[in-house]
């Protein structure tokens, strides 16, 4: 039975409750005498800053949003309030860290606490949810969801967050950071391009000839289930042997460790989503459409280029999107076999117990994955009118 309830938006209700718990019970910041020891917690309640009280306003709007009728105006208000809250939280953390730095010793570090992270995630999710509810189409939604992060990025570039431990870690490792980031992107691109070059023709061939489809997918599925560390390890041995036997390979930079096994492993992982989405995309082109096209006198090549390919494209792109996002994440593990990339920072941080260094490695990877995902979603939601 339909029951009118005071709660109009349950998703937002859950987020508000989680946010409230995080604000009251978890450390907003932690302060430590140096970068390796764990610090003492500073809850939000102990931060006496007028900005903190100003933030109660957007927080109150989110609470109201749970109970207000779910109209377009409510969603816009919630999205703006959540964006401001996210911005304010970052600013508050940065400002407080700067204030602490004025009095403390140079080695002391102010780190973002669990409370901050949880509140920030809550605010971001609230904004995303509100934007989804506006139903303005995929392109507008993706752009709006990315622009929620813009004020925080502006703070970052303005240097307002410079005294937070994460950014002090960044400042001391700037050179390594950019080398690692460039290497990370390099690994992903070097793996994806050959995957597409192999995967698309393979997918098309499997679509045309159904017989080898089952064994090929069986092999690709098995590869997909091999844990990534194991696959990297498995590739080290044959590649090392190959490089030993053929010195020419070694001069090309191919050896048991480094880029080569990492790129090959990522290729193998990416092959399944690419091949599967190529086949699935072509499979869902309605037979009558192909028959009508043939019956009207399009050649085999024209049917493929003008009819099958464009209709298959959205499904295909979603497969490439999955492969790309997956590769961005998996490339972290590649650092274990000496390929470099953001994983190098992560594993170095883990080894030395420096949490900030781990985060410095992880956050850009997450950001990269979000951007790649958004880029592909934008690409596949674009319905161009093909030249007739």
């Amino acid at each position, binding site marked *: 039975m339909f029951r009118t309830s005071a709660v109009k938006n349950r998703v937002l209700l859950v987020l508000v409750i989680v946010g409230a718990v995080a604000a009251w019970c978890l450390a907003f910041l932690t302060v430590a005498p140096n970068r390796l020891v764990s610090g003492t917690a500073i809850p939000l309640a102990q931060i006496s800053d007028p900005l903190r009280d100003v933030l109660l306003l957007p927080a109150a709007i989110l609470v109201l949003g749970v109970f207000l009728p779910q109209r377009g105006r409510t969603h816009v208000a919630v999205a703006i309030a959540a964006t401001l809250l996210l911005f304010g939280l970052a600013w508050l953390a940065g400002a407080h860290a700067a204030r602490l730095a004025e009095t403390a010793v140079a080695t002391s570090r102010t780190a973002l606490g669990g409370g901050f992270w949880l509140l920030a995630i809550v605010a971001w999710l609230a904004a995303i949810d509100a934007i989804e509810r506006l139903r303005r189409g995929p392109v507008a939604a993706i752009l709006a969801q990315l622009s929620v992060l813009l004020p925080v990025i502006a703070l970052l570039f303005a240097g307002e967050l410079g005294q937070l431990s994460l950014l002090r870690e960044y400042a001391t490792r700037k050179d390594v950071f950019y080398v690692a980031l460039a290497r990370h992107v390099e690994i992903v691109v070097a793996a994806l391009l050959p995957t597409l070059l192999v995967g698309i023709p393979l997918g098309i061939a499997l679509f045309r000839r159904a017989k080898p489809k089952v064994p090929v997918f069986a092999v690709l599925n098995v590869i997909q289930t091999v844990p990534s560390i194991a696959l990297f390890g498995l590739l080290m041995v044959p590649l090392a042997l190959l490089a030993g036997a053929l010195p020419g390979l070694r001069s090309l930079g191919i050896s048991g460790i480094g880029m080569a096994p990492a790129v090959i492993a990522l290729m193998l992982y990416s092959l399944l989503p690419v091949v599967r989405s190529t086949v699935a995309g072509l499979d869902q082109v*309605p037979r009558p459409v192909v028959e009508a096209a043939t019956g009207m*006198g399009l050649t085999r090549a024209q049917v493929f280029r003008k009819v099958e390919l464009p209709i298959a494209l959205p499904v295909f792109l979603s497969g490439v999107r999955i492969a790309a996002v997956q590769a961005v994440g998996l490339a972290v593990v590649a650092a274990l076999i000496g390929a470099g990339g953001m994983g190098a920072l992560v594993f170095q941080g883990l080894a030395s117990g420096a949490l900030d260094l781990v985060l410095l490695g992880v956050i850009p990877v997450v950001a990269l994955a979000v951007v790649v995902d958004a880029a592909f979603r934008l690409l596949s939601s674009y319905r161009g*009118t093909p030249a*007739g």
Partner: protein
Amino acid sequence: MIIFEHVGKAFADVVAIDDLSLTIAEGEFVVVIGRSGSGKSTTLKLLNRLVEHDSGRIVFAGDEIRRFKPEELRRRMGYAIQSIGLFPHWTVEQNIGTVPELLGWPRARIRDRVTELMELLDLAPETYRGRYPHQLSGGQQQRVGVARALAGDPAVLLMDEPFGSLDPVTRETLQQEIVRIHKASGKTILFVTHDIDEALRLATRIVLLDRGRVVQVGTAREILEQPATDFVSDFVGRGDIGIKLLGLDTVAAFVRRGESAAGDPIAISASLREALSMLVARRVDRLPVADDDGRLVGVIALADLAKPRP
């Protein structure tokens, strides 16, 4: 002219078409009818070589069809199937312009042709030109399908159950339009359906198929009045034959000029079937008849309907 000479086709071991011989003259509207699996769609596809025949000869425009390049042959024959055959990623304009585009017409000529066809099929060009198939109703999609088949000005139009998925009202409107287009253009049409009423309404000649063999070829009247076998009688519906025969004639054939009767008049262009229905519904034995301008010209009498045609 299209000639099928002892044509045979089998898929694996199953015979789809068995010794089919048929000559279709220019300007005919031939409806191929049969139950599912009778080979009626295959007959159509043999002609545009979506299916290749195993034996016999098929002649189009004076040549065996194997002597044409398949694409060239197909571009000379319009092809319309159920609405799902529209290209979902192309606009109405692009869909209709497919064959002219393939034939390499200049852009302006394609645009004019699309406009002309949209008007012919009662689709407001400026409203629908830029729409995608999923933004149209089933009837509108089918209109686009017919327009697309006509676009290259083909000598022959092949239609495979084009109105199969439509509601009865929309279907009847489109049937009237295809008859009108046939009369105006004089194109040869080969039309496949499983619906006997559709066949009776459209065809200048009906070809009845059963299990790949031709059972009877003839006009609607011949099929109804002289069914060749029991199968034909069953197919056209034994109990309805009289009613269906009435559907082939108009009131004009039996009107008693100069006489008069009470009540609302029936149009002189209405079918005798409609006249009978109206007579029974009103429980009268005479109806006044009005001409196209609404002037009363005479009556139609119940007793006359059973008589042979004057």
